[in-house]
């Protein structure tokens, strides 16, 4: 008996360590991802605008210790422009995905609680928006609203809610039939009270995971429509602006103009993707209690 216990405890141990490590590494990934993003935003505020003014004496320099990412045809420091561009992109992405997620939350809950007509209408809207290619819809919206941050934010928000709306609707439909919600109705609670008190706490994980996973899309779409000329104005230090300007100089051999900003954008997007996936892992009901 004792031996058996011993054997069992031996078998238990390695499993525990692995589990602990997984959760720990998830947390580390999330925290370091967030740290990097905060660092970019902080750096953009700390860096002076001096470096992105015109310096004719330092034009077209290739990357060096003084200018990590080189300088452009006006002598502007590309590293500073990239950091400021990224930070602007992150800000716009955050705003756009927050709006998008809130829209999804409201529509998803409305579809699942306000009866058949509302549900049909919202499901139809979801299908319509899902059928429309994002970029096309984005360009149309951004064009209609005039270029600038407003058009981009509204465009991204309007095109990205359908997926999450579907998920939230399904979740609410399931929650609504759960016993504790039915009990609550029998305690005389109103639909709205139940939606806020019972349903919302269960949707918060979806909310945050959705927010973070939307982020890379928002940033990439912002960059691409800006690149195409429908987005932010050329005077703003946006990544999309930098990339589209650099295209003209690629043929002259100034590869660093597009390479480093493009790479940085890719890295930031990947980091968000990773944070999102790890968050989902953490909130997953099957692994939540490990």
């Amino acid at each position, binding site marked *: 008996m004792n031996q058996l216990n011993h054997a069992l405890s031996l078998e238990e141990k390695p499993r525990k360590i692995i589990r602990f490590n997984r959760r720990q590494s998830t947390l580390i990934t999330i925290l370091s991802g967030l740290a990097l993003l905060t660092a970019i935003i902080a750096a953009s505020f700390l860096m002076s605008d001096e470096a992105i003014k015109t310096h004719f004496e330092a034009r077209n320099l290739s990357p060096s210790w003084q200018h990590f990412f080189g300088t452009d045809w006006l002598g502007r420091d590309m590293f500073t422009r990239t950091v400021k561009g990224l930070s602007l992109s992150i800000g716009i992405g955050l705003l756009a995905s927050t709006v998008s997620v809130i829209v999804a939350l409201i529509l998803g809950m409305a579809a699942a609680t306000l009866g058949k007509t509302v549900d049909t209408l919202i499901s139809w809207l979801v299908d319509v928006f899902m059928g429309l290619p994002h970029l096309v819809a984005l360009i149309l919206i951004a064009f209609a609203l005039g270029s600038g941050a407003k058009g981009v934010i509204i465009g991204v928000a309007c095109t990205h809610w359908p997926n999450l709306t579907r998920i939230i609707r399904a979740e609410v439909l399931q929650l609504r039939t*759960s*016993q*504790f919600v*039915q*009990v*609550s109705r*029998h*305690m*005389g*609670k109103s639909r709205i009270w139940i939606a806020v008190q*019972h349903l919302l*706490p*269960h949707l918060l994980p979806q909310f945050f995971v959705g927010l973070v996973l939307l982020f890379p899309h928002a940033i990439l779409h912002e960059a691409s429509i800006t690149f195409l000329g429908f987005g932010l104005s050329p005077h703003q230090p946006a990544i999309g602006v930098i990339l589209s300007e650099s295209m003209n100089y690629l043929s002259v051999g100034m590869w660093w103009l597009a390479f480093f900003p493009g790479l940085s954008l890719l890295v930031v997007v990947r980091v968000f993707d990773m944070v999102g996936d790890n968050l989902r892992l953490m909130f997953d009901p099957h692994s939540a209690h490990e």
Partner: protein
Amino acid sequence: MQLEAKNIGFRYHQNPWLFRNFSLTLNSGEILGLKGQSGCGKTTLARILAGYEKTLEGRIELGGAPLPKVGYRAVQLVFQHPEKSVNPRWHMRDILQEGWQPDDELLARFGIQQDWLSRWPNELSGGELQRFCVVRALSPETKFLIADEMTAMLDAITQAQIWQAILELAKERDLGILVVSHEKELVKRVCDRVIELDSVHLERNSFIS
């Protein structure tokens, strides 16, 4: 007051009828037992009586009128599985006070300890959780309590403690209680009369009273 089921019938989808032409009367202050084999439809009947499910045939009446559809329901059901009838993301205190504000004296009668109130549902045993569900359902507005295998997972002593508290309260407030259980001992001890939900019976237009 009376809670009445008049010639009710129910089945899930196209499955065979669980019961048909079934009638039952529960008076205020009466403790009625309901027995029956596993799967014969006791839980379903309990849900219908409490208004959680619509009957397909016949009707349910409370004091001569249909069951109200809004506000605090005078017919409360305590489910078999307490862990499903509490929101896992709520504190026990909020769960307890969802319908009304029970006083400390009542909590003590049901053996609910004060420090349980600040815990999460998954930090309590099934039996401890069930006490919360019972007290939650026993507001002064409750006229009838339907207890579906309410104490099936408890040990004999805890079971006795809870039933004693409920019976006392039923006397004080003139509550009518339907005790759904397959434990003969329990039914014999607490109930004034017992009916059986027997599928064979029900096929033949039963009227059990």
